[in-house]
């Protein structure tokens, strides 16, 4: 910023801060050490009058930087909301007085803690600038929906109903997807007793009639480039013509493919036409046109049918699905009821191992099937022997004996596989990635990458992103998202997955999913227009930029960004796409030459906090512990601990970070050189069941910190001085304990020799 900095400090003496601490000294610290131009006290800064004091200072005195020393930065955010200035907070309440006992012998160390937090907040303010939108894109209200099945149709209708124009892309020649091929669907209304007609036809008509929705049939995406708010999409039609439009956000509802029953030779799918999958049975029932369902082989009216549940799913065998598709037991009950409806006195036997009937229809529909004389038998099918009459061999799990039965038709209840594009990270993080402890030679890596190309499927989105064409996957081809907190969110900002491409689900769930993802897409488009971040830093205006002169084009930021936000420009410099960015700072932590920064979060804003903590001389026997705590889980856990009165060691100085992935190794080296005695890093759980709000940040940090041992060795320091912990938001007792443990460790191994 070109204009002159005017720094204003405010010290709140409410909530007991004034009684516990020497506010006058805090004020002095802020002006003398913190170089605040002004500093005032107020006995309740978050009150209307207190806020007015700050507001007046900004409006009348032209303050550009504001330092508020009061409670945690997570408290009173509505009161302390001054978007027109760069603002920092010194956490004197949760960070100091609530975690220290109110006794005379602790008074000195408590005051030292508070003074340090003031110095830190002042330093942070000094090196921050006010975040403002990049203006990279304006509001674009159009939502593109990829996939014209029940999920995509629902998403399109939801978006249109909310007043947002929709571009609906469908690969085939008609809307409706798989459900259009179904005879009937699961009941959605009480008493959940009989299969019902699907609403596909009415929905297709409604979409046709809706002038907010543009339907592209026989179309695929040739290229999707840009970012939320300014996606540019090239649509290719089967006839070869192309068209282009722009959109603000995307909902991907590409659905699923039934598991290939040819992979199940034991069930004779390839040998007999009378062994069909649950999807093929729908076609048979539809073809019956209200009459009895006939056998595919000879057209005989079917009088008995056996359903083989879990065909190729819930299996630990290779080439089968390891997961259950959730809905297939209900589907078999529904299909057995087709026979009861259409084939008169037809025997229907469902051979199950674990019968699971979740959802609203679940138990009622199961009972309805039993009422209709569908026969349920707990048996694991081993073989289907083809013949004029099919023989199903199975183990009866109740009577504990081998059994067999004859029937006219066998239906295999196969599972659902997501229609995902190729996983951008197949060879690095996905199924082809090296397992733990596995070291691959370059040759092996090449082999895997080649294998990945072989198994890979056609791209769906054809994203023009440096990090691959499609949504990253977590497992089994389902796209990666933060399943607990942000289920619709993918690792590509502004692109939301819905329906069975996200996880196996039934129609009703898919429709709910579509509504949810559409709302998220709308939110993303709106946020992009305002230059604001999507979750979890929703509303954040800051975005990363880099100092071009310093950049070595090492590409680490473009590779390590968990969200594929960073492309390369024609001169091979990183090209940040503000609207794709989640503002985690993983790029900042990755950059070896420290040129990436946000307006209010940079190498300096944290580095200067570290430097401005007063390090007492060695003989003072007052160690200093630097705690870098993830603002998503660890920092709230510490706040909560403070509310519960859990004590934290007085040597600790806690700095919240956006994600452990944003931690620069330079902070670690600098603090060790400055004489800190121990460093505690607190991030979220990493690995397959990660809790990291930025997916890969915590894992990246762990990887980078594994190399910190070398630094410690060159400094001739003990490796115990730097620890990385996974902390959950519920670790209210544990998080403070981890800090206190470090204090004990320092007591054992002694103070750092780097004090001066």
């Amino acid at each position, binding site marked *: 910023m070109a204009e002159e900095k005017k720094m204003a400090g405010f010290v709140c003496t409410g909530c007991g801060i004034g009684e516990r601490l020497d506010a006058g000294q805090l004020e002095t610290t802020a002006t003398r050490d913190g170089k605040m131009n002004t500093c005032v006290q107020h006995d309740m800064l978050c009150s209307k009058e207190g806020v007015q004091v700050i507001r007046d200072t900004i409006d009348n005195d032209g303050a550009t930087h504001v330092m508020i020393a009061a409670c945690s930065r997570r408290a009173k955010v509505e009161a302390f909301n001054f978007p027109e200035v760069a603002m920092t907070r010194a956490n004197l309440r949760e960070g100091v007085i609530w975690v220290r006992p109110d006794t005379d012998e602790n008074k000195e160390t408590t005051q030292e803690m508070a003074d340090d937090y003031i110095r830190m907040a002042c330093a942070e303010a000094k090196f921050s600038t006010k975040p403002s939108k990049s203006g990279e894109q304006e509001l674009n209200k159009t939502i593109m929906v990829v996939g014209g099945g029940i999920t995509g149709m629902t998403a399109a209708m939801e978006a249109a109903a909310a007043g947002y124009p929709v571009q609906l892309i469908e690969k085939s020649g008609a809307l409706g997807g798989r459900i259009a091929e179904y005879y009937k669907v699961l009941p959605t209304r009480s008493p959940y007793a009989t299969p019902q007609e699907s609403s596909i036809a009415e929905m297709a008509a409604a979409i046709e009639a809706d002038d907010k929705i543009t339907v592209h049939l026989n179309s695929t995406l040739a290229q999707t480039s840009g970012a939320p708010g300014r996606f540019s999409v090239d649509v290719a039609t089967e006839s070869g013509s192309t068209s282009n439009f722009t959109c603000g956000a995307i909902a991907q509802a590409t659905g699923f493919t039934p598991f290939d029953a040819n992979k199940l030779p034991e069930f004779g799918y390839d040998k007999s036409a009378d062994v069909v999958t649950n999807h093929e049975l729908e076609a048979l029932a539809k073809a019956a046109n209200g009459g009895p369902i006939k056998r595919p082989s000879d057209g005989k009216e079917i009088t*008995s049918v*056996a359903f083989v549940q879990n065909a190729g799913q819930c299996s630990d065998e290779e080439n089968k699905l390891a997961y259950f598709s959730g809905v297939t037991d209900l589907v078999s009950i529904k299909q057995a009821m087709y026979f009861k409806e259409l084939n008169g006195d037809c*025997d229907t*036997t469902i*051979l199950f191992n674990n*019968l699971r009937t979740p959802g609203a229809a679940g138990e009622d529909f*199961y*009972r309805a099937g*039993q*009422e209709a*004389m569908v*026969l*349920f*038998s*707990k048996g694991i099918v081993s073989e289907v022997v083809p013949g004029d*009459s099919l*023989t199903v061999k199975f183990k*009866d799990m*109740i*009577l504990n004996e081998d*059994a*067999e*039965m*004859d029937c006219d038709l066998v239906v295999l209840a196969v599972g659902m596989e997501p229609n995902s594009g190729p996983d951008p990270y197949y060879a690095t993080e996905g199924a082809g990635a090296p397992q733990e402890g596995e070291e691959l030679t370059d040759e092996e890596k090449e082999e895997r990458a080649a294998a990945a190309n072989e198994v890979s499927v056609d791209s769906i989105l054809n994203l023009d992103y440096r990090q691959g064409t499609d949504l990253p996957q977590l497992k089994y081809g389902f796209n990666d998202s933060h399943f607990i907190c942000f289920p619709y969110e993918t690792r590509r900002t502004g692109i939301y997955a819905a329906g069975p491409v996200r996880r196996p689900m039934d129609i009703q769930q898919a429709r709910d999913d579509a509504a949810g993802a559409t709302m998220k897409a709308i939110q993303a488009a709106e946020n992009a227009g305002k230059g604001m971040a999507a979750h979890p830093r929703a509303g954040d205006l800051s975005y990363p930029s880099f100092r071009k002169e310093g950049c070595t084009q090492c590409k680490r930021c473009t590779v390590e960004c968990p969200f594929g936000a960073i492309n390369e420009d024609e001169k091979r410099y990183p090209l940040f796409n503000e609207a794709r960015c989640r503002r985690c700072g993983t790029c900042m932590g990755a950059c070896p030459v420290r040129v990436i920064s946000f307006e209010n979060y940079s190498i300096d804003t944290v580095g200067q906090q570290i430097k401005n903590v007063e390090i007492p001389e060695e003989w003072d026997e007052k160690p200093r512990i630097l705690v870098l705590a993830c603002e998503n889980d660890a920092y709230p856990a510490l706040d909560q601990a403070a509310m519960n009165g859990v004590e934290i060691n007085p040597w600790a100085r806690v700095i919240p970070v956006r994600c452990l992935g944003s931690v620069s190794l330079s902070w670690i080296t600098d603090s060790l050189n400055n004489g800190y005695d121990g460093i505690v890093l607190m991030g979220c759980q990493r690995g397959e069941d990660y809790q990291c709000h930025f997916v890969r940040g915590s894992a990246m940090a762990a990887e980078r910190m594994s190399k910190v041992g070398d630094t410690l060795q060159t400094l001739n320091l003990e490796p115990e001085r730097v620890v990385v912990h996974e902390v959950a938001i519920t670790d209210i007792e544990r998080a403070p304990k981890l800090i206190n443990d470090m204090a004990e460790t320092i007591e054992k191994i002694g103070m750092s020799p780097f004090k001066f």
Partner: protein
Amino acid sequence: MSTNSQKYRNSFLKEVEANVEEGEWVKMCMQCGVCAGSCPLGKHWDHPPQEIFMMIRAGKREEVLTSDSMWMCTSCYNCIARCPRGLPITHIMHGLATYAKRLGLAPKNQPTQGFSQLFWDNLMKKGRVNELKMGLSMYFKDGFAQGVKNAMANQKLGQNMMKAKRMNAMEIMGGHGVKSPGDLAKIIKKAQEIEDGKIQDFS
């Protein structure tokens, strides 16, 4: 033995539904096994109720109807109280036993069945149970020598019952009964006719 074309089909299930008291509930069993685990005499059953229900679905007609399992039921109602699907299991067991006996398939020399027959015959004579004769016929069901042994072993019990006027030695002469045994016989006969009329032929 049933052929493959009957196994795990509805044929026997339909027969049970038509001819066994409360048999229409069998199809609602969800095979959780709570009944089997709840039965205090479970270990004496060849097939707990859960298995019986499965055997019915598997089409094991002979095996089910000749089984002595359902005769083991003491009507404690534990299974009914606990069945999450609300099946009247005790009643189904009695219904199956009755149906097996009707078809002449019930196991011979099954003690519960023998007792039930004695009780019925005794009751039908006068419309009231003659305790003395009932007791004696139980004592002597396995022959004269065994009967004397049984009587001697329970001598004290008998005497106490007489003292307490719970049993009367004079009952041996004929004993008490309902006012009009002939009318009772007519009622029973009519009831049996109705029941017979409802039975469907599945043979």
